[in-house]
């Protein structure tokens, strides 16, 4: 072990700590969990906004709750899963709970052109760049109107660019069901946009 450490290149010590190391440290000290939160805050906030269609404090509150929940269940994390997938799962469940609880309409998330273009590949970048605000709004409404099970897989697959295996672990669905939901969701989205 000591010999291995001695063989390590000098800049290895400066390498950002792996998730596994931070998790082990966070079990003893919440400050180490702070580093994990820093690492995943931005992608998870973006994911929450895409999933819920909300923005601002609403999504920040959801994420805060998700982080606290993740910290409480840190000992339940199994290293055979990707830590990001585990964290996405907790955040996803928290978001679904929030979506079911909320009746008021909070601040809306503005979809970017890139997001829309990734979800609607038939539109070329040039074509997409010509879309006016009304058309973008129409696409956003269509995405929001998709049933939850389709919206979540489309966001994870095409916007978060997660692999099928990761989506399986995030949504706790069998791979076949994920693949079917992606296919049907895509078909439904394009059909509704054409209508």
């Amino acid at each position, binding site marked *: 072990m000591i010999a291995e450490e001695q063989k390590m290149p000098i800049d290895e010590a400066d390498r950002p700590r792996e998730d596994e190391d931070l998790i082990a440290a966070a*079990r003893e000290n*919440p*400050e180490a*969990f*702070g580093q994990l*939160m*820093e690492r995943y*805050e931005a992608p998870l*906030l973006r994911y929450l906004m895409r999933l819920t269609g909300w923005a601002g404090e609403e999504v*920040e509150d959801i*994420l*805060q709750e998700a*982080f*606290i929940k993740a*910290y*409480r*269940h*840190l*000992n*339940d994390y*199994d290293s055979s899963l990707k830590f990001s997938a585990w964290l996405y799962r907790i955040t996803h469940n928290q978001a679904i709970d929030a979506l079911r609880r909320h009746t008021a309409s909070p601040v809306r998330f503005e979809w970017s052109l890139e997001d829309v273009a990734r979800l609607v590949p038939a539109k070329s970048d040039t074509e997409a760049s010509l879309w006016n605000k009304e058309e973008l709004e129409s696409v956003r409404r269509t995405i929001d109107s998709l049933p939850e099970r389709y919206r979540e897989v489309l966001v994870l697959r095409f916007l978060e660019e997660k692999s099928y295996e990761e989506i*399986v672990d995030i949504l*706790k*669905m*069998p*791979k*076949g*069901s994920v693949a079917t939901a992606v296919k049907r969701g895509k078909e439904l989205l394009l059909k509704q946009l054409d209508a």
Partner: protein
Amino acid sequence: MSALSTKTLERIAEGRVAPIARWKLLLLGGAKWAAAGFVSVLAAFGIMLTVHVLFEIDWHVYQELGFTPIEVLQSLSPLLWTVLLALILIAGVALLRQTKYGYRYSLVSMFGLLFLSGVAMGATFERWPGEERIESALMYKIPGYRSFEARVLPSVEKQWSQPEDGLLGGTITSIDEGKSFEIRDFEDKAWKIDTEDALMSESVELKENQEIKIIGETEDNETFRATEVRSWESKKPTSASVRPKAEEHEEESDDEEGSEERDIDEEDGEESEEEESEDHDEDQEESEENQEDSEREAED
């Protein structure tokens, strides 16, 4: 550190939030696995029992009495059992899904797994030498087990608890000198059995406490008119001439005279037929001799 992370850490500190102890999570996971395992074994056991019955029941009786496959299914699958088994299967799959990686497997594969385990267990149990001992221990040492079998489980007892369909089984309670006896069926109901026109297997000992199977039809709520009586152990027809229900009705009136002559042992059916044909040959020889004698007399 970002504002969100800082705020979250503050909340963790203020609320003295700490990771849940590993042993508690292990205990919870273990409980989930135990529940899933128990219900899955129960489901597999239910399927095993059904498979076991498929080996045990008298299929030829259904065939001979002209039951359609749907009627066979209806007669062997009591509603309560079907509902119970379906619920156990659903619960088993639902609990398996709740285990740590249960979500990775589709419902079809989980149902398939439980079903195949049940079939495999059933087939293994069937070949296991101790099977009969377990069965008789259940039957005779657990009070009310047979009645439970006859009412709830798909079983041989269930098969022979369908008087309205012509199949009745039970234990002889008294014997009248002559052509009837009384039995108590597996649902504890008393029946008078009219055996006047019945094919009677010689292996059936008409004595009290003897278990028997009877094919026939109900005359009234308490009387069952037997067309065939066989021992409980028997899984073979009494003779090759066991006829379908419909034909029996037509021939009933013609059969009255020769009923006693048709007392054929189920095991010895073929031998008896041979005996009959031997008798027939002897008669023929006798008549030929008589004819020769009479010819001689005429010549004299």
